[in-house]
C-alpha cells in the first residue's frame, strides 16, 4: 500500500523526464522559431539583427529578387523528381520482391549504394559524368540527379510494403480472372498506396532540401537551397524566411492530417464491428 502511494507521489523520474523532454524540444524548435520570427523582421539590408516588426515580407513574399523564381524552380524539380523516382522505385521494389532473376541479390545490395555514398562524392561524380557526356549542367541535370539519389529511398520504403503483402492475394486475383496487369492495379497497387505515398513524400522532401548534389550539377540554374546559400553572404532576405515558414507549416498540416485521418479510420473500423 505505502509503496504504491509513494510511487504516485514525487519521484526523481517524474521531474527529470519532463525537464529533459522540454530541453530537447527547445533544442529542436529554436531554429524553427527563429526562422519564423525573422520572417517578420523589418530588415533593411541584413536580416541578422532584429529591427522591428513588419508584415512586409508576408504581404509580398516575392519582393526580394529571385526568391520566388528559386522557389518555383525547386518546386518544379521536386515534383518531376518525385514522379520519376516514385514510378521507377516502385517498379524496382515490386520486381525485387516478386520476381526471381539473375543478379537479384546484387541489385538488392547495389540499391543501397547511393544512400551510403557521401553526397559530395555523388555530386562530383555526376558532374564529371555529365561533363564527359558534354551535357550542359542546368535544370535537366538537376532533375536527373535528384531522381537518382531519391530512387533508392523509394525502393527501400516500397519494398518493405511489398514484402509484407501476401503473395496469395495476387494468386487469388489471377484465380478470379484478373490478368497479371489487372491483378496489379486492382489488388497489389491499392495495397501499396500507403507505402508509395510515404515514399513520394520522402522523395519530395529529399529533392526540395538537397543542396550539395544540386550545387555541383545545376550550372546557372538556381534552386531554393542554392539561393539561400548564395544570398547568405549578403544577408538572407526575410522573404526566404517566409517561404521556409510556409513549407514548415505545410509539412506540419500534412502530418496532422494523416494522423487525424488514420484515427478516424480506426474509429470507423471499431464502430463497424
Amino acid at each position, binding site marked *: 500500500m505505502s509503496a504504491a502511494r509513494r510511487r504516485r507521489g514525487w519521484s526523481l523520474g517524474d521531474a527529470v523526464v519532463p525537464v529533459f523532454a522540454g530541453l530537447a524540444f527547445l533544442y529542436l524548435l529554436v531554429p524553427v522559431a527563429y526562422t519564423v520570427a525573422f520572417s517578420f523582421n523589418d530588415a533593411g539590408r541584413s536580416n541578422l539583427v532584429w529591427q522591428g516588426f513588419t508584415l512586409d515580407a508576408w504581404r509580398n513574399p516575392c519582393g526580394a529578387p529571385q526568391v520566388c523564381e528559386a522557389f518555383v524552380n525547386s518546386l518544379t524539380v521536386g515534383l518531376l523528381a518525385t514522379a520519376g523516382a516514385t514510378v521507377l522505385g516502385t517498379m524496382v521494389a515490386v520486381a525485387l520482391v516478386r520476381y526471381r532473376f539473375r543478379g537479384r541479390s546484387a541489385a538488392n545490395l547495389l540499391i543501397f549504394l547511393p544512400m551510403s555514398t557521401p553526397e559530395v562524392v555523388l555530386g562530383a561524380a555526376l558532374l564529371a559524368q555529365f561533363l564527359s557526356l558534354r551535357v550542359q549542367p542546368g535544370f535537366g541535370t538537376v532533375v536527373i540527379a535528384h531522381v537518382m539519389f531519391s530512387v533508392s529511398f523509394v525502393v527501400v520504403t516500397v519494398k518493405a510494403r511489398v514484402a509484407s503483402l*501476401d503473395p*496469395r*492475394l495476387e*494468386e*487469388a*486475383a*489471377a*484465380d*478470379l*480472372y*484478373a*490478368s497479371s496487369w*489487372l*491483378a496489379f492495379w*486492382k*489488388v497489389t497497387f*491499392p*495495397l501499396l498506396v500507403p507505402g508509395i505515398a510515404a515514399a513520394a513524400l520522402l522523395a519530395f522532401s529529399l529533392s526540395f532540401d538537397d543542396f550539395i548534389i544540386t550545387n555541383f550539377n545545376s550550372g546557372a540554374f538556381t534552386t531554393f537551397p542554392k539561393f539561400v546559400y548564395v544570398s547568405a553572404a549578403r544577408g538572407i532576405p526575410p522573404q526566404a524566411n517566409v517561404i521556409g515558414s510556409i513549407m514548415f507549416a505545410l509539412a506540419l498540416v500534412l502530418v496532422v492530417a494523416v494522423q487525424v485521418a488514420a484515427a478516424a479510420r480506426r474509429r470507423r*473500423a471499431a464502430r*463497424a*464491428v
Partner: protein
Amino acid sequence: MAHGTTTGVQDAAGPAGATDGPTSGGSGADLGLVGVTKAFGSYLAVDDLTLTVPAGTFFALLGPSGCGKTTTLRMVAGLEHPTSGSITIGGTDVTARRAHQRPVNTVFQSYALFPHLTVLENVAFGLRRRRVPDAVARARDGLALVELPHLADRRPAQLSGGQQQRVALARALVNSPAVLLLDEPLGALDLKLRRQMQVELKRIQTEVGLTFVHVTHDQEEAMTMADQVAVMNAGRIEQLGTPAELYELPRTVFVANFLGQSNLLPGRVREVRDGWVGVDVGGTRLVVPQDRAVSTHGDVLVGVRPEKIHLLPADEELSDDANVVGPGRVTDVSFAGVSTQYQVEVPGLGTLGVFAQNLAGGAQVALGAQVRLAWAPRFTFGLDGSTDASDGVVDLDRA
C-alpha cells in the same frame, strides 16, 4: 437488351468459353489429370497423377500433410505449371492456359480475401473481371447463399474465421466455375463449426451442382462429404472410390490404416480354391475371398475392420465357416457411449482392436478375460505382404 444476356460468353478466355454459356446454374464439368507430375528441384511433390473427376461430383482429395494435395490443386488452378502431364476441363486441354483463363475457382487454405475491399466487392471481384452485367446483384445472391448478406459492407479484417471462410466460398461460387477447388477450407475452424460447415458445404454443392474438388487431411470429413475419395500419399494416388468402397475394401496398407482403423495380420498363402484364398496366419487358417485379395501367393496381410469382429468366450462352440483367431486376453476396454473398444492380445499375432456396439448396455467383456475373435470371411481383405503393416497409421498424438 438481348445483347446484355450474351455478355457472359464474350470473353472467350473466360470460364464461359470452356463450358456452358450462361454463368449461372452451371453444372460443372469433368476434370481430368493425365500423368501429371510436379518436381521441385529433384523432389517429386506430385508423381505421375492420373485421375478423372466426373462432372457434378463432390470429390475429396485425402492425404497426410505434405503429400502434394495443394500442389495438385494449384496445377489445376493454373498457379503452378506441371513438370509433365496434361490437365483437361470439360474435355478441353487447359495445361497451357494461365490461371485467369481457366474456368476454375479456388477457396484458398488461408482464404486470401482482399483486405482493401468490402465483403461485397470481394465476392463481386471475379464477376467484374468477366464484365458480368449484374455483378453486384449476383454478389449479393452469393452472400445470401452462404448466409452472410448482412455483412456486405464490412472489411475482411472485421469478420470471424468462419465468416471469412464463407466469404471465400461465396467469392469462388458466384462465378459458377466448371470446377471449384477447396483447399482445406475448414482447416482453421474449431470442431463444432467445422461439422456445421461440412453440412453447409454439402448442401451448397447439391444445390448448385458444381464439380467440387475438396482437399483435406481429415478422413472423417472426406468420408462424410464426398461422393468420391482419392487417397493420396507421397505424391501418388493410393486408391480411388466411394467412401464405402475405400472403407470396406482397401487395396493398400496405407488406405487400410489412414481411412479408419484396420487389423492387419501377416500370413502366407497356402491354397487358392473355389474363389477363396486360404492363408496361414501364425498357425491359424484364415480365408479371404479371392476377389478381395490384392495378392494370392506368398506373403500377404490379412485385414479386417474392428467393428466386423465378434468377441466370443474362449470355450464357445463355433461354426467352422467363420474366421477365428485366439484365444487371447482382453488388455484394454474403453467405453465410448455408443460403442466399446477392446484391445485383445493374441499370442503370436499381436494386439487386435475390436469395436462392439453397446446393444445390451455397457461393456459385455471384462478386462483380462480370455476370448476368441471371429468374423465373417466375406469382410476379410488381403493386402500385399511386403508393405510395412503400420504404413499410414494415423499418429493419435498429432491428430
